[in-house]
């Protein structure tokens, strides 16, 4: 009884003491296990959350990246297009610039044509100038030749006495010659120079003067009563046909009784003969040019 109770109490206290010893360890172990388990739970939950978040983010990233990608594709396409257009535009501009420069800035063919035209023009000008020079030279030659001819003629005129006659052959027509000299022919052609001694006038003028018709001056021709005579009366009039002197010839009154027996005044008077012979004398003295 009591010993067994005490033994039991001791056993229980042993067990309690052992249990008390192990209580801490076992508590801690239980806490550890529980905390690990709770940790697993939480971890599982968190990992689920992570997975969900990741898939949301994955989807989101995919969306945005695809949008970006589409944009990049668009820009790349645009850039390629623009490069292509630029290259084509450069080709067009090259052609245009080439055309423009060749046509307007430096036209090679126009220049070539211009230079050919210039060569032709030069040729014409050179030909024309030579022709003109030739003409002028010929003109000058002709004038000198004419002068020489004239001088030779004058010389022949002076030496006209050396002309050969039938009886006496002249110096220029000597017998041993086959044909007469040039000067001889000239002598035959030319009229002799008649040297007149004295201040004679040319024959033609003298003839003209000798046979000049009468040129009476106006004074001689007109009758002195011409003014009175010129009026011829009309046949069928009855009035006296003389001009009434009063009013035309004189404007003063006439006193007939004083003028009885007197002759009327002559209205024509003698003129002065200053210019009668003007220009009709053969001397030219007094003719002012």
């Amino acid at each position, binding site marked *: 009884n009591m010993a067994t109770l005490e033994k039991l109490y001791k056993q229980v206290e042993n067990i309690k003491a052992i249990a008390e010893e192990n209580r801490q360890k076992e508590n801690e172990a239980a806490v550890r296990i529980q905390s690990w388990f709770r940790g697993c739970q939480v971890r599982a939950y968190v990992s689920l959350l992570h997975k969900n978040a990741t898939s949301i983010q994955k989807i989101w990233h995919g969306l945005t990246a695809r949008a970006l990608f589409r944009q990049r594709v668009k820009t790349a396409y645009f850039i390629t297009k623009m490069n292509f257009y630029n290259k084509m535009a450069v080709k067009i501009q090259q052609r245009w610039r080439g055309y423009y420069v060749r046509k307007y800035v430096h036209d090679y063919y126009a*220049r070539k044509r*211009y*230079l050919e035209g*210039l*060569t032709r*023009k*030069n*040729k*014409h*000008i*050179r030909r024309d*100038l*030579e022709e*003109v*020079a030739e003409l*002028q*030279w010929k003109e*000058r030659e002709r004038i000198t030749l004419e002068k020489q001819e004239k001088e030779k003629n004058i010389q022949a005129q002076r030496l006209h006495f050396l002309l050969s006659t039938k009886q006496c052959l002249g110096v220029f027509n000597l017998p041993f010659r086959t044909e007469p000299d040039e000067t001889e022919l000239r002598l035959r052609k030319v009229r002799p120079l008649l040297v007149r001694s004295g201040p004679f006038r040319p024959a033609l003028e003298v003839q003209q003067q000798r046979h000049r018709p009468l040129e009476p001056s106006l004074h001689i021709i007109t009758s002195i009563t011409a003014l009175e005579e010129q009026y011829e009366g009309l046949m069928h009039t009855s009035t006296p046909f003389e001009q009434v002197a009063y009013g035309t010839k004189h404007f003063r009154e006439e006193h007939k009784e004083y003028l009885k027996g007197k002759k009327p005044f002559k209205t024509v008077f003698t003129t002065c003969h200053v210019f009668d012979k003007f220009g009709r004398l053969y001397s030219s003295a007094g003719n002012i040019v």
Partner: protein
Amino acid sequence: MSQRQILQVFEQYQKARTQFVQTVADLAARPQNTETLQNAGVMSLLRPLLLDAVPTIQQTAALALGRLANYNDDLAEAVVKGDILPQLVYSLAEQNTQRFYKKAAAFVLRAVAKHSPELAQAVVDCGALDALVISLEEFDPGVKEAAAWAISYIARHNAQLSQAVVDAGVVPLLVLCIQEPEIALKRVAASALSDIAKHSPELAQTVVDTGAIAHLAQMILNPDAKLKRQVFSALSQIAKHSVDVAEMVVEAEIFPAALVCLKDPDEYVRKNVTTLIREITKHTPELSQIIVNVGGVAAVIDYLGDSKGNVRLPGIMMLGYVATHSENLAMAVIVSKGVPQLAICLEEEQEDHIKAATAWAFGQIGRHTPEHAKAVAVANVFPKLLNLYLDTESSEDLQVKAKKALKSILQKCTYLPALEPLLYEAPSNILKHVICQFSKVLPHDSKARRLFVTSGGLKKVQEIKAEPGSAIQEYINAINNCYPEEIVRYYSPGYSETLLERIDTYQPM
């Protein structure tokens, strides 16, 4: 004594005076007598005779004075110092004086004014210009001619005297004189206008404003040679000052009629026409273009062929001016066969200034493009230019121009056969350009490379000593790079020695 005997004394005196003055006038006509006359004191004796009562004595005394003053500027100064001029000027302005005396008085003024600007100034100071203007309005053409001549001699010296002449209102009267029928008067009036217009652009403008150009242009085809000389000289003195007056001269439609005068028998007419063309082409490319289009270049080139000596100078300068403006015009000169003609001029002429002008003209023609340079090179001009540059007897100006021309043509020349002779003779500053051209052409043309080697050019190039790093060395390197190494080594100097040295080191097997 009776009255008749008294009068006889006076008659004898008058006869003596007449005879004296006429003999002096005849003696003064010969230049060898002037010194004796001057020593005998002829001035002081002639002076009172100018105031003589008898008009014939006055006239002959004035004529004698004029002839004396003509020869010698001492006598002219004596005329000025002796206060003779105011008397002459007064009688010139008087209405009643006979025209012979006016002519003689104008002759004296001209004879005094021609020697120097100071004497001309003295003539102007006496109030001669107003009197001369009055004589220009006279009827008699002889008086007008003498007055115009005196005016031209006064205006000739410098711009101030010309300005004084213009201020006296002479120019419109001269233009009226040009329209008169007498040829001598036209000549003198044209020469007076030429002398007035030559000094400055304002004076030329004054002459142009009175409408002189139209009248001068009408006289171009007049048959008288001396008149044409003066007309062309006047037109060229007017045209040289500015573009506007040159354009006005061209607008007067003198071309192509003036080109006909390039075949005139008188040498100075041709020279003056060429001077006129040169003054016109000098200003702008448009004016040069007008002249080229009308065929002026061909006419001038023919003129160069026909003439010799100093008169060629304006023609050569005209070609140079035309070629300067643009490469089109330079090509026009080449196409008109200008280059062979200029080469002939360079060959024939002896005077340095003409050769210098020809060298300058070549430089202007050849400097534009390789085409132009080739045209100049083909005419075999380079050796001549080089000789002119190197000749110690050439003047400074000639050497400078020849060098500049060579340089400017060489910088564009790609015609190798003409460049090769220069390799051997040229000094280093010219050689630099020659080698430069070779280095530009050889890399692209295989036939030229072969020719260069066979003609010995590569050998010569190797012999040139140049400092490393200088431009010549670079060009030589560029040339050497066109050829394989063996060839370059073969032609380098001293190759035979190096080959022989190899014999010494060679061990026969």
